[in-house]
């Protein structure tokens, strides 16, 4: 050891030690200081498999199933993990060619949030046969796997607008959800699917799976300690009555318009029909997008949810509200009478009326739907001496109107609800100049024409107010979640109108008279007291809209309904019989007047609504009926010469 070469021995010691020391430092860095390798390892070996919960089912008020789920399979890929796959075999299994393969890969690459290490959809919704074929060969294609999800399926071709549909999330949905959704996930896009998205969708679960370099599963990670189970979406029990809904849709076929039926005491929407509708099953599966485009381009606008989105001039049904406001403002009593000589004249303004006995008191005016009477009422309300200026009185009038849910947004859960249109005084100030307008200037409002726009939902809601004699609960679609769930809290509040309870009775009596012997005789159902009001709404689009509102039974109302049939003529002609049949169905659980029903179903009014060149009135449906009673009623209606529209 004490040889002259001990220097060299030390040199070698130093070399060994230096190398060892460098390696120790490097290892310390790799293993202790750097976190990136641990992260890498996690991404490498842990594969998080999203566990999609099944979406909550949707049922009707009696528990009848409306919307359920269907399993679908998506072919997913983690691009960074696929290497050396037999593309020929792959394409064969998927029945695509090389171009198709490249196209899909390219599309995926260009999509937002593309990452080599993250799983993404390669092919959406593969067929069960492809799924079966793939499942067996999956180990040949590292990086590829199949994810099971659920799509919607619909029991009936019904209530499409209310139920809405689901579809793939957009980029902005993903951002808004704070990362809950991933590309390709489904989200409620319209209707209650959208309104109750968070409850219906449930909660995704994650299963951490250990995979090897070829992406083969090696079992669960830490015995599933970090796994989360998916939480199934809650079942939604809607307020709809499937039978009633189906009847409504059947009655409205080949017509454009809406039906809204509400249970007055609870505000529950029993039925909401928008016609023309569409088959909700068009919005499932791979054709979803194409079908959507087709429906979007359809000139009859089947996607338009008329009951909540289409404001109509209410026409004569507005007289009901005027009767109440007039009384509340102290300018009208049940005994107030006005004469009518075929209309109302005020300078150059003339509002026409049909022939009827004169003079009329309040009940009579409702029953006969006298235009002149309500022009007088309106004038006394607006030109009331209580208020210094017209616009003050108008403001009060408007406040009353709003309290009936008109011109405001009702609390229904559906998206894109229209508030309707109730003009503000500013609008008239602008048109005529401040203080340069008075009751006679805006007299058409008196009979529900002019600048008024009211959605069928609002009409039904007003009817419910009448049925409740003074209040409404926000109409809604969701009854409860889960089989024995509680009613939703936000739909228990009673909204009282600004009109006192005592003023309602006479109006209700008037409405009863309408059906007993007024403009709405056709709506009669034997053994049930019905209160109703016809409306015939003038509109710039062609023939008048046929409007009818009603509730029944009179003393313990179970249903309040509004029907609008576009360009169909008098309220009594189409809307009233349809409403009557709906009420019969709901109250007696059957329709005895099959003849009337058939006549309504056969009525094809759709061409009335089409652009002008097709306005030839080929529809003579009502005259072909066979039922004797209906015939009698039709004749009676003819005799009464229902003409509640103005000519001004």
């Amino acid at each position, binding site marked *: *050891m004490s*040889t002259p*070469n*001990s220097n*060299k*021995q030390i*040199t*070698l*010691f130093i*070399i*060994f*030690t230096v*190398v*060892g020391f*460098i*390696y*120790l430092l*490097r*290892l*310390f860095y*790799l*293993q*202790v200081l*750097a976190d*990136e*390798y*641990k992260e*890498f*390892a*996690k991404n*490498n*070996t*842990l594969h998080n498999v999203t566990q999609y919960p099944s979406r909550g089912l949707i049922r009707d008020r009696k528990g009848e199933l409306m919307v359920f789920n269907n399993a679908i399979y998506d072919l997913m890929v983690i691009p*960074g993990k696929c*290497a050396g796959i037999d593309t020929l075999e792959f394409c064969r299994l998927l029945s695509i060619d090389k171009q198709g393969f490249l196209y899909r890969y390219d599309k995926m690459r260009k999509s937002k949030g593309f990452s080599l290490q993250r799983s993404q959809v390669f092919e959406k919704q593969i067929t069960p046969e492809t799924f079966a074929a793939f499942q067996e060969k999956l180990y040949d294609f590292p990086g590829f796997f199949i994810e099971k999800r659920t799509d919607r399926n619909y029991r009936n071709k019904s209530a499409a607008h209310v139920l809405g549909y689901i579809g793939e999330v957009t980029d902005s949905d993903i951002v808004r959800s704070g990362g809950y959704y991933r590309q390709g996930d489904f989200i409620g896009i319209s209707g209650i699917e959208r309104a109750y998205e968070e409850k219906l969708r449930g909660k995704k679960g994650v299963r951490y799976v*250990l*995979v*090897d*370099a*070829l992406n083969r599963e*090696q079992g669960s*990670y830490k015995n599933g300690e970090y796994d989360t189970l998916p939480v199934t979406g809650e079942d939604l029990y809607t307020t709809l009555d499937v039978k009633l809904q189906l009847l409504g849709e059947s009655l409205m076929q080949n017509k454009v318009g809406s039906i809204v039926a509400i249970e007055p005491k609870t505000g529950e929407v029993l039925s909401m029909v928008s016609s023309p509708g569409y088959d909700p099953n068009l919005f499932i599966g791979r054709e979803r997008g194409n079908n959507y485009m087709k429906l979007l381009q359809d000139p009859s606008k089947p996607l338009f949810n008329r009951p909540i989105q289409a404001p109509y001039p209410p026409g004569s049904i507005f007289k009901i509200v005027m009767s109440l406001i007039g009384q509340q403002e102290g300018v009208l009593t049940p005994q107030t009478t006005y004469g009518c000589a075929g209309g109302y004249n005020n300078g150059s303004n003339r509002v026409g009326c049909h022939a009827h006995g004169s003079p009329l008191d309040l009940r009579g005016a409702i029953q006969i739907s006298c235009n002149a009477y309500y022009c007088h009422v309106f004038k006394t309300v607006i030109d009331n001496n209580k208020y210094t200026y017209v616009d003050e009185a108008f403001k009060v009038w408007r406040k009353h109107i709003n309290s009936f849910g008109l011109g405001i947004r009702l609390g229904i859960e559906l998206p894109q609800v229209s508030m309707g249109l109730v003009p503000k005084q500013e609008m008239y100030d602008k048109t005529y100049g401040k203080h340069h307008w008075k009751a006679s200037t805006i007299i058409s409002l008196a009979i529900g024409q002019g600048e008024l726009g009211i959605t069928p939902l609002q009409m039904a809601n007003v009817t419910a107010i009448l049925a409740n004699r003074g209040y409404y609960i926000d109409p809604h679609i969701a009854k409860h979640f889960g089989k024995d769930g509680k009613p939703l809290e936000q739909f228990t509040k009673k909204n009282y109108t600004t009109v006192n309870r005592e003023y309602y009775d006479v109006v209700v009596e008037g409405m009863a008279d309408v059906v007993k012997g007024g403009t709405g005789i056709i709506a009669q159902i034997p053994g049930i007291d019905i209160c109703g009001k016809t409306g015939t709404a003038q509109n710039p689009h062609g023939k008048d809209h046929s409007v009818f509102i009603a509730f029944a039974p009179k003393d313990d109302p179970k249903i309040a309904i509004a029907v609008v049939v576009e360009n169909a003529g008098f309220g009594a002609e189409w809307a009233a019989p349809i409403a009557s049949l709906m009420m019969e169905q709901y109250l007696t659980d059957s329709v005895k007047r099959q003849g009337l029903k058939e006549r309504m179903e056969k009525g094809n009014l759709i061409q009335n609504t089409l652009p002008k060149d097709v306005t030839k009135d080929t529809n003579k449906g009502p005259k072909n009926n066979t039922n004797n009673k209906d015939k009698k009623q039709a004749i009676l209606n003819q005799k009464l010469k229902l003409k509640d529209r103005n000519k001004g």
Partner: protein
Amino acid sequence: MFDVNPQEKEISTQGYDWVTIGMYLFFVAFGFSCIYAADYKPEHASLFDWKTNHGKQLIFIGVSVVLGFIILLSEYEIYPTFAWLIYGFIMFLIFSVIFIGTEVKGAKSWFGIGGFGFQPSEFGKFAVSLALARYLSGYDIKFKNLKTQLYCAGIIALPMLITLLQNDTGSALVYGSFILVLYREGLPGYLLMMGLVMVVFAVLSLLVKPIILCVILVTIALAIVYLFRRQSSFIYLTLITVGVSCILVFSVNFVFNNVLQPHQRDRINVLLNRNVDLKSVGYNVHQSKITIGSGGLLGKGYLEGTQTKGDFVPEQTTDFIFCTVGEEWGFAGTSVLVISFIYFLWRLVMIAERQRNKFNRVYAYSVASILFFHFMINIGMTIGVMPVIGIPLPFFSYGGSSLLGFTILLFILLKLDSNRVNELQSVFD
């Protein structure tokens, strides 16, 4: 100094270095546990399944240990005596494998015997060590003579060339480790330094533009010349070094692009982090670093390595066995291994220095140098500081030939070492 009484002699003749033997057994056992872990499948957990790698390794270990002890019991004289014969025989085997061997991963370096492969180049190391020791311990051999130096170079270069012909660059490079032996036996230190400096420059020249590097070099040279202007010999040496370096710097890129094979270029690119695709050429080292890095301070626990289970690192039982240590035992495990190995190398050098005859000493230094080279390259490549050169980690890596080769290498040394006392004794006799 060596007061040996007859009683002690009895024990001393047994005088084996038990510490080294103990460390050898520790390495082999640790290595086996890592192979078992890398091989481990819960459904086939049997230790004694001869079809699995760990099962086979168990056989190799058995054979090696038995052979090791046979060597310890053998006669000391046969090694110096038959050194040339062994060298010739092994060279013949290595050479003939080119013609009758089977090709594995592009290298034709295997004999297929039954179900086992036999890699003669793993035995070339102890053959060269014996031959070199035999030659340098010969009568009147002075390392200063050019003839001696050329002779030594020839002994080393022969197997190196044959191995290169087998297309097994990794194994060929191992013979480069003998430069340390030659250094100990008289090769001037500055040659070692120059070699190191050239490697540094070669690497730098791949990273920096050659012309810039040359300007820097010349600047440094001029500064040195100015500082040491009174020592003319030093000036010449400096100028020569700088000149050679400049040529080297310019030629490296040429060699890199035109002489090296594509996979060798890739490996150097991986090491230097030059636009590497982690999916293909960079995959191995990247995954290796992930595996080691994910072990953390204390590791994931034995048989708990997720990377290991997932087979993310290719060759994890052989060249990349260190990954398993890294992942499952963490920094605690890797540092124990590195420190043990360095201590083991120190011990070999100490053993070398306590030899009283040149044959033993040269052989001992050969063993230390070879093991050091394997250690440095193998662990270096798994942690990304050395290019990927496919050579095993001694005693750890799976493989019968390599384990047997290293065992023979080490146990001949232990035998020689045990005999130093006898030799001493014979001097006194």
